[in-house]
């Protein structure tokens, strides 16, 4: 089966003033469908840049990235927007819920941009149940704990049934109890629903929840475990 993510000799250079910053220096990797992969590495190693490129948030300088059969190196800005709507779900360290909407509103707006309407399908209702947020859906983020907000963010990321779930330090703002709960949920989603997950983390214990761990340093994947 063809991998759902293929990255070949990916390079990314940012122009900061008159200085060129080489964020990625030839990254290559493949992620089969249904795999849970952790990416670990120190700050500045290029983890977030890789995450942003695979998520279609920024363009590629050179190399090739294919997500679910779509070559990102050829995409225009509007095509990258469509990629984010259909193929990618993001979970951020700081939850990034819209503060003016309820938990359900946050989920529904992602669904709206994904072009989906009508009632929530039974499988997604099952995900909400698994995440344990069905009784918190009508609360605004300020009324939710950090763990609850992150679980709502995970539900929001999955509502359009994306090909991949990209999680950037999903437990970075949580205490150990909530961290374990969120990581357990990600693993359950991966095992129960076959969801492909790419997770960035600093925490080796968190990384261990994944099937495979990629170690990055200085813009390259240096080791795999």
């Amino acid at each position: 089966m063809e991998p759902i993510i293929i990255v070949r000799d990916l390079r990314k250079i940012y122009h900061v003033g008159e200085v060129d910053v080489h964020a990625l220096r030839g990254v290559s990797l493949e992620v089969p469908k249904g795999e849970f992969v952790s990416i670990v590495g120190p700050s500045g190693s290029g983890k977030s840049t890789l995450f942003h490129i695979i998520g279609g948030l920024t363009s590629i300088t050179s190399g090739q990235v294919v997500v679910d059969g779509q070559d990102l190196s050829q995409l225009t800005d509007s095509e990258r927007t469509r990629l984010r709507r259909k193929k990618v779900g993001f979970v951020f360290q700081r939850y990034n819920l819209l503060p003016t909407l309820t938990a359900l509103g946050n989920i529904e707006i992602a669904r709206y941009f994904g072009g989906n309407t009508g009632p929530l399908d039974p499988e997604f209702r099952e995900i909400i149940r698994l995440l344990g947020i069905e009784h918190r859906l009508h609360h605004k983020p300020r009324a939710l704990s950090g763990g609850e907000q992150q679980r709502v963010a995970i539900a929001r990321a999955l509502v359009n049934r994306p090909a991949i779930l990209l999680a950037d330090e999903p437990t970075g703002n949580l205490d150990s109890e909530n961290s374990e709960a969120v990581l357990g949920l990600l693993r359950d989603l991966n095992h129960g629903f076959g969801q492909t997950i790419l997770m960035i983390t600093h925490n080796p214990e968190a990384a261990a929840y994944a099937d495979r761990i990629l170690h990055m340093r200085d813009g390259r994947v240096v080791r795999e475990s």
Partner: protein
Amino acid sequence: MINRLVIENLKHRKLRTTLSALSIGFQVTMILAVAGLSRGMLQDSMNRAKGVGADIWIKPPGASAISLSGASMPQSVLKYFRQVPHVRLATGTAVQPIGGISTITGIDYDEFVAMSGPFRFLEGGPFQSDDDVIIDQYYAEQQKLRTGDRVRILNHEWRVCGVVEPGKLARLFVRLRRLQELTGSEGKLNQAFLKLDDPRRTQEVVQYLKSQPELAGYSIYSIEEFLSLFSMNNVPGLKAFIYVIIGLSLIIGFLVVGLTMYTTVLERTREIGILKALGAGPMDIVGILVRETVMLAIAGWVAGILLSVGAHWLINTHVRANLQSEIAPDWWPIALAVSLAASLLGALYPGLRAARQDAIEALSYE
């Protein structure tokens, strides 16, 4: 869904939303108040002109049709008018400004009453001396005057001899001769009125008067023609003034909404990044801001209508001797168009800025 987000965004910052809507509301009020005042004052002037009871209205050469001017005609011309066929009555008045847009009018009491019918006195009665002044109810209420009170006008002390119902040419009446003496314009009139034996002959008499060489340069109107002049187009500078007010409203609306939306975009930088990560395109972001702007403009418009109704009540309750206001519903769509145009112009730059915002930078914004 987007509407829900927009409404929740507006509700989230209640004070800012309220202040923005009120600012737009004041801009709408400016337009509606000026339109209402213009119309109210023209209607009031028209009603008072009708109250004279004349069939023909004559202004001296060089006088503007409905505005006050210093031009005058000799009082002796009334004798000439009285000899014109079908003219039953002829009288004239002198008008003197007394500050702002207020005037005092000199009349020959008996001639004026013969033409317009008797004054309806709410208190007091006709002139008893040369220093008596008859005032109308609005002026009495606004100045808190009653019969017997003394009032200083044109550097002269007058005694209020009577308070009459409004609607007869002027708000303050004094004896014509006394006013002419005080203003050094003995034997001069500012306008003349003719009443005919048969109003159906009005056009015939007007044509006759216009054809007389000795009346060359005089403005001679049938009362219908004269009343038709009471429109915004015929008041010098009124239209320009309204355009200036509309222009100022546009600028105020543009600045208020521009500032509101600019701070909104700055404050919501991170949220814009989230929306982009969720798949919102630049036009989705602009669409959200445009909807917020339109809602603010509509809320401001409604507030403006309510404020203008309040202003109308205040004017007509407290200063109706000087100003009269009407509610002008036909101006509501114009005010809405101005507030929408100003608001959308104001939202243009913030909207484009938000649309161009880099998603990654926005997401890392603290």
